[in-house]
């Protein structure tokens, strides 16, 4: 009895002290912090693991029909699911371990999508008889159909006098022929992107010119004839280049490689389709690290392939950076001017106060609303009218009256202008009044005070604002989906043809790339690691920008503490 009373008394006192509630509050902080750290770690681990040249295992397992199977594959991840679910989905009851409520399974990347699909498969641990990592297995990264795995058998070099190479000489020759292929591919790339592209641009210009001539009455026959001659000249040049191109392709497609898959059956590949090869099982740690760094670099510098599920993200990085740059060029002056106006020039009163609140609140308006406005006003209204005025030749196909780089930058500039205004205003408020008065007392005009005293002092705040604006813009996707982003842009917005910077072009964007590859891609398993890697890239970019802004703000605070004292 006594003890019971004592313990209730203790609990009452303990609750009254608020101790359990304090712990609960502390747990809330713990949950938030764990979530942030967890998310960043998850993305980092999953994103970085993809580039590691994992060993290729030779797995022998029993398939659904009780047949023995042999495959080469990379073990991607271990997962488990309840036995019940496994059985309900028609799993083989023989594979269940007695007493274990869950089934362990490996996600294995087996590649060879063309000869032995699918390229990713789940293999239950209990299904597997044996796993080994035989040396000599090569991984081939191909132009299409994903990776291939196998042991090289023969390489046939040359079409006219084929030479068959086997044994010791095979690998060195293979690497040498691949290097040759790279050189030819580069030639093809520069031919297509350079001379042939220039001719295409010329032909399009001529087409519009001829349409214009035909439309104006009376038809200017001389001009038309001139345009026709020019067109036939260009076409002739194009044909020559095409011949050259065909020759390159013929040169490229000289060799045939035969590899053996795990079952020992031959797979014949055109070496022209192979981009890179490596032998993970024969590599030591150092070589693997080198390969890893190489893979990372390729991811950053290459174009995507195979509906964005392979290759790199270079155009997306380029598009994001260019769009954000254009946006900051627009947002900085306007944001600063508006802040200076509100703080230094406008008469402080209820009107300015309510404008300030409105500007502040615009930062809370959903970004999709800006996208809707951008599409309606910038693209259809402004762009449509620009087309009517300046690009009538090309109508009805729109030039500026369709989503594009300029409209995306403008929309995001509008979206982020409150960020710059608020930050700049904060900086301006912190500048002590006596500095302004001192400057004026020395005879400076208001403009001189602004340019020589106030703006330099506010520059860290302005910079903070711009950085925050850039960070926000780089991560926005929803409005961009409406005003200019595409999943695959055929050309970069900057190239060698006049006017070099093509503001009307559509572009790729890292954030949209994540959405598109993760959700619209036909081969989600193949794409997922790339999405993690892209996410990591975006997180690093944005967190980096934000940390810079936070540090700048801290420096700014210290600076003014000095001025004020």
């Amino acid at each position, binding site marked *: 009895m006594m003890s019971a009373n004592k313990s209730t008394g203790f609990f009452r006192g*303990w609750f009254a002290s*608020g*101790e*359990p*509630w*304090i*712990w*609960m*509050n502390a*747990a*809330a*902080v*713990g*949950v*938030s*912090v764990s*979530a*942030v750290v967890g*998310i960043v770690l*998850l993305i980092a681990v999953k994103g970085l693991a993809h580039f590691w040249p994992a060993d290729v295992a030779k797995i022998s397992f029993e398939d659904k029909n009780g047949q023995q199977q042999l495959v080469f594959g990379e073990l991607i991840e271990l997962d488990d*699911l*309840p036995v019940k*679910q496994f059985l309900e989905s028609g799993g083989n009851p023989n594979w269940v371990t007695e007493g274990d*409520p869950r089934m362990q399974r490996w996600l294995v990347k087996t590649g060879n999508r063309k000869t032995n699909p699918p390229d990713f498969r789940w293999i239950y641990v209990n299904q597997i008889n044996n796993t080994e990592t035989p040396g000599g297995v090569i991984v081939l990264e191909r132009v299409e159909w994903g990776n291939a795995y196998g042991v090289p058998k023969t390489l046939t070099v040359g079409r006219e006098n084929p030479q068959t190479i086997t044994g010791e000489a095979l690998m060195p020759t293979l690497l040498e022929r691949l290097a040759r292929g790279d050189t030819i591919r580069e030639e093809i790339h520069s031919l297509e992107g350079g001379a042939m592209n220039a001719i295409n641009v010329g032909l399009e210009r001529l087409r519009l010119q001829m349409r214009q001539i035909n439309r104006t009455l009376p038809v200017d026959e001389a001009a038309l004839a001139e345009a026709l001659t020019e067109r036939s000249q260009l076409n002739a040049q194009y044909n020559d280049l095409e011949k050259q191109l065909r020759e390159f392709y013929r040169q490229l497609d000289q060799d045939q490689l035969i590899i053996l898959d795990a079952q020992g059956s031959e797979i014949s590949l055109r070496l022209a389709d192979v981009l890179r090869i490596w032998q993970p099982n024969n590599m030591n740690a150092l070589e693997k690290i080198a390969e890893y760094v190489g893979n990372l670099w390729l991811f950053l510098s290459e174009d995507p392939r195979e509906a964005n599920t392979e290759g790199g993200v270079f155009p997306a990085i380029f598009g994001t950076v260019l769009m954000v740059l254009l946006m900051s060029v627009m947002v900085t*002056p306007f944001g600063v*001017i508006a802040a200076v*106006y509100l703080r*230094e020039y406008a*008469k402080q009163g209820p009107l300015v106060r309510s404008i300030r*609140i409105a500007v502040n*609140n*615009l930062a*809370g*308006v*959903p970004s*999709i*609303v800006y*996208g809707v*406005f951008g599409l*309606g*006003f910038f693209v259809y209204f402004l762009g449509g009218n620009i087309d009517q005025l300046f690009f009538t030749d090309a109508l009805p196909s729109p030039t500026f009256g369709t989503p594009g780089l300029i409209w995306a930058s403008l929309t995001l500039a*509008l979206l982020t202008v*409150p960020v710059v*205004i608020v930050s700049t205003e904060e900086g301006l408020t912190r500048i002590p009044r006596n500095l302004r*008065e001192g400057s*004026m007392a020395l005879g400076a*005009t*208001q*403009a*001189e005070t602004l340019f020589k005293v106030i703006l330099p002092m506010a520059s860290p705040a302005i910079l903070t604002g711009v950085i925050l604006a850039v960070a926000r813009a780089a991560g*926005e*996707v*929803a409005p961009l989906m409406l005003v200019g982003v595409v999943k695959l842009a055929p050309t970069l917005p900057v190239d060698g043809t006049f006017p070099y910077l093509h503001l009307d072009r559509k572009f790729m964007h890292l*954030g949209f790339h994540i*959405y598109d590859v993760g*959700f619209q891609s036909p081969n989600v398993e193949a794409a997922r690691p790339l999405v993690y890697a892209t996410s990591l890239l*975006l*997180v690093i970019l944005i*967190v980096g920008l*934000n940390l810079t802004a936070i540090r700048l703000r801290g420096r700014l605070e210290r600076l003014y503490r000095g001025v004020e004292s």
Partner: protein
Amino acid sequence: LSLIMQNQIHVGRLSPRRHWTNVLTRYTVGVGGAAVIGAITLIFAYLLWVVAPILLPAEIETPTDYRIVERPTALVDVSENGEAMVRISETGIVEFFSVADGSGIAAFDLGRTIVKAKRLSPLVDTYALLDDNNNLLFVKTDYIIDFDNGQRRLSPKLSFPFSNRSIPLGPLDNFDAQLADDDLVIATVSGTQVSLTRFKNVEIGYRLGGSAQVTLASTVQAQEVFLVPRNQWIYLLSKSGEIDVLGIKSLQRVSRIYQGSLAPAGSTITAVTPLLGRYSLLTANDQGDIVQWGALVTANETRFVALRTFDVGQPVAQLITEPRRKGFLSVANDGELSLLYPTSGRLLDQRPSSLPASAPMAISPRSNLLIAAPQDGLITAHGLDNKHPEISWSALWAEVWYEGYEEPIFSWQSSSADNDFEPKFSLTPLAFGTMKAAFYALLFAVPIALMGAIYTAYFMAPAMRALVKPGIEIMAALPTVILGFLGGLWLAPIIEANLSSVLSVFVFLPVLLFAFALAWSLLPEKIVHSTSGWYGLIVTPLIIGSVYLAFQFGPFFENTFFGGNSRAWFLEVLGLSYDQRNALVVGIIMGLAVIPTIFSIAEDAVYAVPTHLVRGSLALGATPWQTLVKVVLLTASPGIFSAVMIGMGRAVGETMIVLMATGNTPLMDFNIFEGMRTFAANIAVELPESEVDSSHYRILFLAALVLFLFTFVLNTVAEVVRQRLRRRYGSL
């Protein structure tokens, strides 16, 4: 300041260059500032400008009369592009006139007497003409635009879609013809006798092949006959409103689908016409009602239900439907025209006219012109300004009885592959989805963010706070597309496979936390006291541990409480079906996106509570917890309120997370295991495909405007509350 400035100018010691720089700067800043603020207001103004036309009333405009050659008219119509009118006369002459000035453009003589003419359903440019010998001929109009010496010219052409051979039909009272893909059916009625002729593999531009024929007896004295979509059924309707529906999928096995009446007893039908798509029939009776009847097919029966009734004030003699939309126009006995739209249930406009009620009439394919032939030598055209008839307050927000549904429902289904689809523009499911997503997100985020803010501001050691606060704020900068991707492709499958483990986290965490806190309080007073600022750190392994334990014991829970399959259990016991991408996933992931917003503002509010209040309270003997609850939270409550408001604004407008972590189905179900469709996600999905200036486009703009206003008002309230708070601290 401005006083000083003006003095300077008056003193006049400035060199012109300095003076002008100063003036120029002032104007540049003024103009620039005003421009930015103007640009911001432009957003609101532009959204409103796009939305406004749906609020404007429709209008039947003043008529234009065209004098033309006098001939008895069998049919009038307007070309697809609205530039030419066509009249088919009873004397067999097809003439084309310009809509601009009524001048004749072309004429063709068919050389026969026409007694009845109809459009060949569902085409708008092809007509079935019945001559006085009961032969049926199909003609097709084409409008070719070419340039003659730079002059745009419209040349109408008349062609025979199935050769110029006519089809003999025998004596008849009425007929109908419909081409469903390659299946042409001609139906005729004569007394109670129905004859059907079917041509298979029909292609426009080619001769008709062999036909199958059947003659049957109907139970009604049919005055009207209509073939319905895909030539599945035929409707036979008598003067007194009795209807007989026959299934004619196969002419060998014609079956009776339905028999009944479409008019109240004792009344007679004065006009009847099928709406576009022929899923529903409009009947007008002599009591002055226009009723929309829909055929409702359920598993065991087919019946006709009155979807809605219109009252135009007096008996109607003729009903004319729009060829490309579901709207129609009624003509009263005295010629009064009423423009109506079924889905929105709107009587759009009424206008008296001198048109004889039985005059041949037609609405143009673009629904912007009504033409009629009141006399042999006259065509009267009324412009119809009627761009968004499908939108009304009730169509947007109330339950609507759509064609083919058993009852009125809320539905958002804006487009389909079919041309005769009835768009469903109810914003209610989207508003509901938006609220549902925001509710679950806030349910998760508000407690965590507020409690975290309280701890961070009030209890946490300064050294830890300096790291934790920016750390959580960084989370605000994480792109939502990444969170959405993790939600949809990482978290959703995990929750699906481990539902009971995830749910048991909510059991393990509080229990373990409680036990741990109890154990900690038994430690020496000194340790407890000195560590209270670090609880947040101490507790983190505990959180990770309880998640780990929950996943270890998850299968155990699954077997013990949920019979081995929690998803099946929820469906059978609670009736909750499970989608992989659901409100639980959105709640957690969007919660994570909202936490930093709420946390940051609430933390500022709690931190800003003046220390002398806290010290005073503590000095009077209150414990830190009592001080927090009774003094600090009360003082900071407006700030906390505004934090929640701003968090809600963010949750309501978030796009990418909802787009990626839900199935985007516009459901009206609060079930946490099912998805939803929000305004923002809906805009992102549908706006790029929406036709500019269509009703759909404007409704999406309306959704954006609603989002804009909602968040703007929410944030303004929050801001005003926060400013009041600041003023109160100022006085303390």
